[in-house]
């Protein structure tokens, strides 16, 4: 208890310092006059492939046990979102899936980190199943939630809190384990470049298409440097190089750095083409590689991974070598890392700035803030630009694409920002203004039902969250009934149930049951049931799920059910 209070005091002091720093900070530096911000695309020729940028989907294990302090309403107010509406955790990954299936059928995807939330291997497995739908390949730069407990600190994989958080979702994914799992997910991708990587690692003998992620992860060597030397004749190469180091003794020092190729084939372009001789690449840095194990409360020797990123000399040396080895052609190169530049440790900032200047890197792309923005940095060599990509889960449900063009002698960045709620409303008819779909205040599944928890007791917090999730399942089933005529003996029904009515009644009973494990056990059954049961109207269920994610994200952003400033219509109550 004393330890918890001390931790709380330290966190409040840290939060106070951060708020204080924000208030006294100077106006941001301006973009130099040489940059222009045209409203229309000037005459230009494309010189790179388009990539989709997505970040911070925070796939969260819904079936964990209580996590003291970190999963409490108080922590939620002090650190990065510790508790989201359960609807956002439950339905939110449908948003990522939609992006991958829609945009991933045309362009490669670069994920800028925080695929997971607690950092569990089971969370990563589910994430990888979604990304598997990307038809042109995907790669990611690790985020602090992809190898550190709840995005903040390193703990031993045997730590009770972390194991409780990862209950029913594999095991705690320390940073070394993340590198293994991510490498396995690269090896299991279907493209020629990924197959070449598998071959180089001696893994092409296995029937990888059906291989288990855990099995392949175990076979990943503890270090390696791979480069796809030549363009495959029949298939495009996206992943060009990857280097990784796995340090099981000091997991926080493990890293993975990648080079992805965005160069267009000049042969496919009308001549003369500005793309001839242009090298368009992105280097995906690992800003979650630390000198010392990150801690929840920063000390003079340590940082909190959620507040600060770091890059160590061994990773930087690899990137320097890649940049030096690249032919001296026109370079449209981008550095991509999870942490914003300003959140990196001083030495990492200096190193990255040095890399940027020496290799004429055009742009640094980051994520982590969940609120997309452009950031200008001052530098002795001239002010420069960072593109920060917002979260696909937290409002404004953002994705961007990125592509380079040549406009005469100048580089032109084309990077439109899209907000998913607008797209889903326009293209999918979501939300459909179905009044019964939305959880209103006073209902058991009201989005922010936990807002009034104000409870340091993690067990009570989880009980209420699980009840809210059960109520969300109740609404989902009520409004999206199982196909009529299905057999009561079908295998998808939860134990003891033979109809929707049985399931709804069982939910009501489990809500009244105070045993947390009983609730978690039935929620796991409900998840399987939801995955396997045939519904009367699959299209309606798809829209229902997306609308739940949109509304939960929207109301979470303002911490209540209320209009946002850009809402057009408000229907008033009957007089």
């Amino acid at each position, binding site marked *: 208890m004393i330890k918890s209070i001390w931790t709380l005091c330290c966190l409040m002091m840290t939060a106070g310092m951060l708020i204080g720093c924000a208030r006294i900070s100077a106006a941001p530096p301006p973009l130099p006059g040489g940059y222009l911000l045209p409203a229309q695309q000037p005459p230009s*020729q494309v010189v790179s492939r388009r990539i989709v940028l997505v970040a911070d989907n925070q796939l969260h294990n819904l079936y964990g046990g209580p996590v003291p302090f970190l999963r409490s309403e108080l922590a939620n107010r002090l650190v990065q979102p510790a508790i989201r509406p359960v609807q956002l955790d439950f339905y939110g990954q449908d948003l990522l899936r939609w992006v991958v299936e829609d945009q991933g059928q*045309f362009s490669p995807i670069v994920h800028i980190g925080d695929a997971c939330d607690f950092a569990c291997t089971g969370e990563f497995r589910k994430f990888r199943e979604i990304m598997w739908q990307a038809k042109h390949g995907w790669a990611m730069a690790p985020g602090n939630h992809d190898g550190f407990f709840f995005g903040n600190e390193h703990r031993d994989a045997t730590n009770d809190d972390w194991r409780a958080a990862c209950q029913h979702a594999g095991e705690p994914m320390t940073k070394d384990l993340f590198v293994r799992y991510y490498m396995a997910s690269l090896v299991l991708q279907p493209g020629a470049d990924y197959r070449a990587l598998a071959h180089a690692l001696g893994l092409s003998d296995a029937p990888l298409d059906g291989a288990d992620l855990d099995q392949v992860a175990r076979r990943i060597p503890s270090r390696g440097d791979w480069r796809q030397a030549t363009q495959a004749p029949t298939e495009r190469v996206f992943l060009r190089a990857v280097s990784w180091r796995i340090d099981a003794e000091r997991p926080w020092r493990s890293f993975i750095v990648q080079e992805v190729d965005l160069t*267009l084939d000049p042969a496919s372009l*009308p001549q003369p083409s500005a793309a001839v001789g242009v090298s368009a690449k992105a280097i995906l840095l690992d800003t979650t590689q630390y000198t010392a194990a990150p801690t929840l409360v920063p000390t003079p020797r340590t940082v909190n991974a959620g507040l600060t990123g770091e890059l160590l000399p061994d990773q930087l040396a690899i990137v320097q070598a890649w940049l030096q080895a690249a032919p001296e052609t026109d370079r449209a190169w981008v550095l991509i890392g999870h942490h914003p530049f300003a959140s990196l440790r001083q030495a990492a900032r200096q190193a990255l700035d040095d890399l940027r200047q020496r290799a004429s890197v055009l742009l640094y792309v980051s994520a982590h803030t969940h609120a997309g923005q452009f950031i200008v940095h001052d530098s002795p060599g001239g002010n420069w630009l960072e593109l920060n990509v917002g979260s696909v889960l937290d409002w404004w449900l953002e994705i961007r694409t990125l592509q380079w063009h040549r406009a005469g002698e100048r580089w032109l960045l084309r990077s439109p920002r*899209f907000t998913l709620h607008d*797209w889903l409303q*326009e293209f999918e008819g979501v939300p459909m203004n179905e009044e019964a779909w939305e959880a209103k205040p006073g209902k058991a599944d009201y989005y922010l039902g936990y807002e009034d928890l104000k409870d340091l007791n993690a067990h009570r917090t989880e009980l209420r969250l699980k009840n809210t999730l059960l109520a969300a399942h109740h609404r989902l089933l009520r409004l999206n009934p199982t196909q009529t005529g299905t057999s009561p003996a079908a295998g998808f029904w939860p134990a003891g149930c033979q109809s929707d009515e049985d399931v709804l009644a069982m939910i009501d009973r489990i809500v009244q049951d105070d045993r947390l494990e009983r609730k978690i056990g039935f929620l796991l059954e409900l998840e399987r049931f939801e995955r396997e049961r045939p519904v009367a109207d699959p299209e309606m269920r798809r829209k229902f799920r997306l609308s739940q994610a949109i509304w939960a994200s929207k109301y979470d952003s303002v911490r209540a059910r209320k209009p946002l400033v850009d809402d057009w219509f408000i229907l008033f109550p009957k007089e």
Partner: protein
Amino acid sequence: MLETPISATFPVAYDVLNRELRTVRQYFIVRGIPEQIQWETDIVEGTCIEPGRLLGHIIWASAPAEDLRAPAECVGRIEWINGRIPYEVMHRRSIPLLRLAQS
């Protein structure tokens, strides 16, 4: 009213009523979305065009560039060229590429 039949055969169609050259959604559902529509250097606002005129090229990531020509009845002076083409949604909706002035 679209003069050219909506099919996967043509990437663009001319909307006579609104005098707009528009992308055909079905075409891009089948082919995928392009990297860029690159206009010929002389295709600017004020240029007069006629059916068959080479307007530009549709650039694909994994296939040779495709000529983009003015379809039947697309004749007149270009009044407006779309400078913010949302390629990312070409499989979702028809996009106006340019509009001709009223004759």
